[in-house]
């Protein structure tokens, strides 16, 4: 059982950490190929959450008693873990949100208000491959304050057309927000070029790292972005926690978004003043347990080693691609120069949802649909695709199960 030829991943050992993988679905071993939607959770994460409720169950920040001190220390320590995960130093640059979606809404709202607010005619540039989380908040902002959304087009291969950058990113461009890796078809965008253009015109740069954080190192200093965001539930952590990282001086200039407890310095009916960064962006009781669990997830990922995970997954995706290409009637969607995260495909004459239901009968969990990337689907002329996405625990056996289940689908529709 040598699934690990191409990497230093010990699959058997890793799989023992994921209790949910050890189950049957419709009598068949579960083959989980939906990590792009949410990753499975290792025992370390499950136990971290559990221990919050069994030992350190208290609210954070304002309590003097022991349980609250312990909860606060564990919660705040995750900022250090995140800073380390990103390869940065300053834990105050780490704001906790529910995930990328909340982070993008925070950015769209806070960039849209206050002294330095975007004004009518200012332009925001995003990409055709982007997830709805990096589209809709900006659309809502544009509707509210007259800013204009510009979109980097995408070619038939599923690559951003970067030759258009010069005409798209101009003096009017104030924000460039872009996804790192497409959750829909797996393209790794050339963010260096996109951000270089953005910096040329002094635009604020934002990276949606939802689909790169679980698969590769992402250092916002090296990348050169002002803000970066990822979701803990896609980096082996619990639902409910994610990160908005921002350069300290940028965060300090940004007005707060949500108001309430914990984000204030003083409140009076005449005037309230806000807490320091990062707390001014965290109104109300945060998701303490999820944040602590997210820390355990990042530790887990780093203990396995992101370079090993990357090598392992890159090899898997390559193998998956060649095996899929050998199945008649399979059409792979997009031919990106660099791929991560997933492969999307269609089956001739078979609707993705039917395929997904039948594949589930073989225990194979993939996703069928538009993957919250409707504009991309429209661009590619597809209502939906089948997406197989990988996590560190996947192996050749999973790909073989995927292939068999596709063949079963094709037999039924033969």
């Amino acid at each position, binding site marked *: 059982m040598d699934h690990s030829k191409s990497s230093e991943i010990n699959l058997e050992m890793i799989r023992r950490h994921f209790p949910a993988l050890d189950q049957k679905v419709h009598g068949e071993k579960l083959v989980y190929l939906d990590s792009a939607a949410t990753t499975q959770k290792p025992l370390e994460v499950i136990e971290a959450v559990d221990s919050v409720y069994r030992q350190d169950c208290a609210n954070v920040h304002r309590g003097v008693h022991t349980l609250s001190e312990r909860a606060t220390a564990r919660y705040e320590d995750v900022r250090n873990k995140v800073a380390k995960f990103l390869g940065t130093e300053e834990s105050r640059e780490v704001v906790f949100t529910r995930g990328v979606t909340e982070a993008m809404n925070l950015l769209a709202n806070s960039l849209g208000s206050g002294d330095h607010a975007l004004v009518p005619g200012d332009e925001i540039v995003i990409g055709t491959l982007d997830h709805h989380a990096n589209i809709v908040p900006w659309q809502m902002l544009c509707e509210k304050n007259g800013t204009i959304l510009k979109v980097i087009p995408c070619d038939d291969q599923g690559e951003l057309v970067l030759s258009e950058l010069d005409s798209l990113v101009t003096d009017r461009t104030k924000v460039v927000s872009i996804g790192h890796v497409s959750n829909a078809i797996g393209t790794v965008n050339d963010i260096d070029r996109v951000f270089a253009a953005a910096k040329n015109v002094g635009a604020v740069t934002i990276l949606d790292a939802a689909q790169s954080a679980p698969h590769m190192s992402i250092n916002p200093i090296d990348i050169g972005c002002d803000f970066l965001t990822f979701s803990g539930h896609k980096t082996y952590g619990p639902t409910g926690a994610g990160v908005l990282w921002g350069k300290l001086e940028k965060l300090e200039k940004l007005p707060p978004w949500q108001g309430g407890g914990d984000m204030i310095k003083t409140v009076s009916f005449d005037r309230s003043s806000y807490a320091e960064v990062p707390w001014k962006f965290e109104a109300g009781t945060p998701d303490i347990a999820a944040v602590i669990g997210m820390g355990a997830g990042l530790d887990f990922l780093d203990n396995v080693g992101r370079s090993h995970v990357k090598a392992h997954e890159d090899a898997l995706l390559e193998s998956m691609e060649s095996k899929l290409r050998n199945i008649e009637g399979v059409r792979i969607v997009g031919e990106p120069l660099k791929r991560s995260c997933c492969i999307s495909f269609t089956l001739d004459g078979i609707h993705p949802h039917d395929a997904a239901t039948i594949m589930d009968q073989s225990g194979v969990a993939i996703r069928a649909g538009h993957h919250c990337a409707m504009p991309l689907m429209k661009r590619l002329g597809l209502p*939906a695709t089948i997406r197989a996405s990988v996590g560190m625990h996947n192996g050749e056996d999973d790909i073989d199960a995927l292939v068999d289940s596709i063949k079963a689908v094709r037999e039924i529709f033969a």
Partner: protein
Amino acid sequence: MNDLRELYQELIIDHSRSPRNHGKLPQANLEARGHNPLCGDEIDMEVLRNADGVLESIGFTATACAICTASASIMTETLKGKEEKIARAIFADFHAKVTGEDSAAYPDELMKLEVFTGVKDYPSRVKCATLAWHTLIQALSGDPREASTE
């Protein structure tokens, strides 16, 4: 995996490949559009209801999965020529069965609907099986909004 494979084999594949009553219905006097936002299925339903409340003709066009298309096809076959109130009663029965609320068998003349009972374990697919029905009811009710399965 046998149940579902049978479901997909017996009738659904056939009806999804060669849907009955597919196409525009120029003489229709009622129409509605249905949409399943979760998977993108879209269906247009046209009905000719006569003065006695009988559904003389039903036609549909769809871009949808096999279950949705077959459900529309079998529905139109089943309801054509029936009175509106009978049609509504059949839908109530169908709905209860595909959502697993009612596990009784269908009467003989509705046996074809039985193939959809297997989707009750797939709440997301239940919506595929019911979209055509919801859209039909919307057309009969003269409700101009887009039907949705939610």
